[in-house]
């Protein structure tokens, strides 16, 4: 389900949360750091803004099976 966050690269800056036009990405606390997660995956418009703006290149886009197969 896009986007996918690569936690080894993510610094938890929260920019993806700030700019997501769907309000789909939220931050949560995990092992004393702040990490992004996709709270509303169905509402992602696949605009790619999060991937474009991520300063660490920690976001990849993976389309779900329904979009790839119909």
């Amino acid at each position, binding site marked *: 389900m896009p986007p996918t966050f690569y936690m080894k690269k993510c610094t938890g800056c929260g920019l993806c949360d700030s700019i997501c*036009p*769907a309000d789909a990405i939220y931050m949560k606390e995990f092992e004393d750091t702040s990490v992004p997660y996709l709270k509303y995956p169905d509402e992602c418009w696949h605009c790619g803004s999060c991937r474009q703006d991520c300063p660490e290149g920690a976001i990849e886009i993976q389309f779900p099976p329904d979009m790839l197969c119909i």
Partner: protein
Amino acid sequence: MELIDLSADVLIIGGGLAGTNAAMGAAEKGASVLVADKGNINRSGDIGGGVDHFMAFLNEGQEWDTQNAFLDYVETIGRGTGHLSIIESVYCAELPDAIERMARIGNPLTQADGSFYRTQSMGQPGTYWINFNGKRLKPCLGKAVRKLGCTVLDKVMMVNLLTHQDAVVGGIGFHIRSGSFYILQTKATVIATGNTNRLYENPRINPFNTWLCPFDTGDGQIMALNAGAALTNMEYMRMTLLPKGFAAPGFNALVGMGGRFLNSLGEYYMEKHHPMGNRAPRYEVVYFTLEEIRKGHGPIYIDCRHLNEDDLIHLEASLGYDKDTLPDYFEQRKEDLRTKPVEITVSEGMQAGPTEVTGSGIKIDKDSAATVPGLFACGDASDHNRCVHGAVTGGYKAGKSAATYAKGLAHGDGAPKSIIREEIDLFMKPLHRPSGYPYRQIEDAIRKIMAEHVGPMRTKGSLKCGLEKLQRIESYLDEMKATNFHELMRAHETRSILSVGKVMATTALFRTESRNKPYHHRLDFPDTDNTNWCGLVVFRKDGDRLSCSFEPTN
């Protein structure tokens, strides 16, 4: 709940392409400006992730490349759906400054060598599309707006306009994370909230998998309507052609470069049906594609295999400008433009302008003013702006006009706060119900009703049935439950979507002819009647009374 009171000369509702240009227009005229957006203005709206096209005449010497030729084109494909005098004022007159402004903020419409890369499609007499890399356009606009000193309220959804003595004097809304409630008192207000999506059942399953921004839900049009403003062209159900599983724009790029529409019989059907072939107006392409599918000639494809190497290289390099993730989609779906046609299909329906050059929504005049004092509109939410070019030019125009209006007023005397406080509880109600229906359950029903009864093949009977069912589902709006402010936002969007659906069905019932089929196709009145219907259907709400009237454009 925290209450935040702010005041300024101008409030911009919606910080997409039109809204950010409006903010620049107002601020550069010296006004103090508030911008409220459900998202973050750096990436919100239809082109948040990027864009690749801008329509313009450039006076570069060709006969078709002038203002007069452009207005002839508007008249030809618009078929009476817009006043040329207004388009001249809000688009043509603003065009040179708009092109300069995009360069000034750091995202020029030119290629690296300073030239314009121009393509032709959608019934244009020449290469009116400027193909460019607009992936940084929204971040650049967001930066420019903040640099001009505008107060930007990201993640704030406006839910109602404030009126006082029959004029609009600001608006109220809430922060979609914190729930803080904003009371924004301004002398002038500009609505720039885009068109209405998530309105029809989606052929790609997920209602958020839409061509245009799924977070544009007609909020501004309905706020304006409730404040007494007139709407026009609301009967048009816009559609386009898109990749089968992903509602990514790309039509302009593919057809502009020479892509050909292909049916499953191996026929390039548009070349048979229309003198302009694949470059026919969009509504004609959609109409004939629906016909092909109805005749059993589907699936439908777009074929780019014949393009020369230079064009293919340009296409592959620029395909992600309009939708950043489209190249990923093609790769993951194993599509290859060079070796096989790409399956496409007709998009979901939406409420939007009947062409790329005539809009729908809030009725505006030559100064982008709505029919209520203090209210202005631009972009896809207004009836004489459309698409990227309309948002950039018309947005700036609306901002300038709002600033001029605000300067001409004495110190604003806003709406009494006691009334505003009473309204706040009303808008928060879905949060406080112990139980209720999720917004999605109501919205899915609206989409089903719209698709089955208010779709591209309409009759008096279907539209009346659709209206009755929409009224039935309306009675459940007050039973929606939201568990957080995000869901509260979606619940308010559902209300707007339903209201737009009702306006659409009512105006479609009123226009007893067909125009720009399939965008308004009455099976019981299949012909275009230019004697009686060359013009705009104007919709108004006066208290509980709804009315339609006709305004000729000739």
